[in-house]
């Protein structure tokens, strides 16, 4: 029979048991994560008139803003771009918002499930998996926007579009890792929740989403240090332009994200039980 023992000791002191529990909980949580995922999708769209259309609107709206600014010569950022500017911005925007949603998802779901967390013991991973799944679902729907755009500009996707899947998954992962690491602090202080959207807004402007990476200058330097840049650039290039070697730092960012993902999972698991004292509901 399954035995669970609770002591004041930190879970980190028994790494073998910790990893064993993590693996068993992950397999245990699949069914629940799926249920929560379906519940959230259904609940999200059932009480709307426009339904899934709401998924399309954010990238379309932001893209429209930048296309208009560019067309009115207020911004001049379309130099040296191989595809029509609207295609460039829209694809970049879809990728960025995938990342941004994934950053906000863990904290949002932990916060909205405080009642559940403080009453029922279920594999907590399920919440995160469901929330990240929801971000993935929304961004997959958004990718459909590229179909009419491709038709409009008489473009055909190249085989390299298949490679796009890798940076896409890494973006999702990196976003959720940031969200998961932020969530213990976000449970304690609401400041984190307020800071995240603001931070993401700035971060987007410092990332080559609506412009291509400048060769030098402060912006070029920042874009070079920004871990999101290579993912967005390569992903977009493979999706709408064609085959090219990944941009600098791509593999570094990819492997680092995978490693940090495991660490963030441990952080989440180990800190959540002590945080339950603080979210008494």
């Amino acid at each position: 029979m399954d035995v669970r023992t609770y002591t004041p000791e930190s879970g980190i002191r028994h790494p073998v048991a910790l990893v064993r529990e993590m693996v068993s909980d992950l397999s245990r949580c699949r069914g629940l994560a799926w249920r929560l995922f379906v519940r959230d999708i259904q609940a999200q769209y059932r009480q709307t008139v426009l339904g899934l259309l709401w998924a399309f609107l954010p990238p379309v709206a932001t893209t429209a803003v930048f296309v208009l600014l560019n067309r009115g010569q207020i911004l001049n950022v379309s130099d040296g771009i191989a595809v029509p500017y609207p295609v460039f911005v829209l694809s970049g925007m879809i990728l960025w918002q995938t990342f941004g949603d994934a950053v906000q998802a863990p904290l949002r779901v932990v916060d909205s499930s405080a009642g559940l967390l403080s009453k029922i013991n279920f594999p907590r991973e399920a919440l995160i998996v469901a929330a990240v799944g929801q971000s993935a679902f929304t961004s997959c729907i958004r990718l459909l926007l590229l179909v009419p755009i491709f038709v409009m500009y008489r473009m055909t996707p190249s085989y390299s579009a298949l490679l796009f899947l890798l940076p896409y998954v890494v973006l999702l992962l990196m976003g959720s890792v940031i969200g998961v690491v932020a969530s213990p602090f976000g449970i304690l202080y609401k400041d984190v929740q307020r800071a995240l959207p603001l931070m993401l807004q700035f971060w987007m402007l410092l990332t080559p989403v609506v412009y291509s990476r400048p060769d030098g200058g402060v912006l070029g330097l920042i874009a070079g240090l920004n871990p999101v840049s290579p993912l967005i650039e390569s992903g977009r290039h493979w999706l709408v332009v064609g085959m090219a070697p990944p941009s600098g730092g791509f593999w570094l960012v990819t492997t680092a994200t995978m490693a940090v993902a495991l660490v963030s999972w441990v952080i989440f698991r180990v800190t959540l039980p002590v945080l339950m004292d603080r979210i008494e509901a």
Partner: protein
Amino acid sequence: MSDQLIDVCASSKKFCRDLKTSLAYGVRDIAREMVGSRGTGRSRLRHGEFWAVRDISFEVRRGDCLGLIGPNGSGKSTLLKMINGILKPDIGRISVRGRVSALIELGAGFSPILTGRENIYVNGSVLGMTTTEVDAKLDQIIHYSGIEEFIDMPVRSYSSGMRVRLGFAIAAHVDTDVLLIDEVLAVGDVGFKQRCFNTMANLAKDRAIIFVSHNMANIARIATSVLVMNSGEGIIHTPDVGSAIQQYFEQFPAMAGSRIGEHLVHLRECRVPGAEDDAPTVRYGEALVVELEYAVLGEDEPDVIHLKFFDKGASQVAVSYVRIPSGIAQIDGYRRLRVRVRDFPLSAGRYSIGIIFAEAYNDTVNGKIIAHYVSAITLRVVGSETISNISVQLPADVLLDEEYTEARSPDVRADRTLV
């Protein structure tokens, strides 16, 4: 079938009174967990903290039901959450074997937008059921909840009673070894409460149950042992459910010293003569004599004495009234008198007797209460042949009337001859 499923060993839990301090401690706790603290630092109180649960130990075996009682804020729910693995103990160690399910808040995680049926799947999987299990039990759950006609309506339009019905129906169909129940039946109509209670009693047979309730009658019916808590500490843990419930009532300040109201009568002695031990005993059907020695301290002279009898569930089951002989009022200081209850009608078990000194009453108005001693005596009744848990057993016997039997016999014979 008597394997130990829950083992709580010298466990404590502390909380912080102040929000800001609590949050700051939270950040420190995160850091401490991440560097792999041994947990020894958690055993001291920091500024502003208090023990919500202090040094509790017990074990529960399969088939046992531990009733957990205590005043509000005595740490019962915290203890349940610790056993459920939601809160980490700050000191001690808790082991739980087998699948655990907690009926702490019924219908936690219900999405108001979704229908009852959809929520059965969500809630079921939160409680650890697989989709196949829910599929198999879906009809049973819906039938048990008794809200078949509303099952495809969104839960937001349910009444609170309907939500609890559905929540309980789901929780009751989860196969578990350990069941933690925290005062969940407060809502719901009488019929459903009764059904839930029967279900729980049934589930208790092959599970380990911890049952928190403020309803002592329910505790008395279902618990095989009781832990009384106050201010986080375990006051008493005993299989003697009756005396534990007695202890519970003594936790309340109003009842402390077994006295309510002003102390206008001092009851110095109150005993059952002939029984010198702690639990005076009376035989069912025989006379109960209670000897009282009291002094009147105030202006008001009591005219009557009421003896109120409470069963172990603290329900009042009987009362006796006696008039105090008027001559006794002349005596200064302590007066002694005996109250006799003839043909004592309560069935075997444990009772507590409350004693009230009051002014005379007439048909319509109760007299003013001068002094009220809530549980002055604990009484054990023996000798009744009963299998029910009904307190009052009215003496009855069969009347075999000779004339009746004789008159009847020829008729029987006559019937036979007719055939």
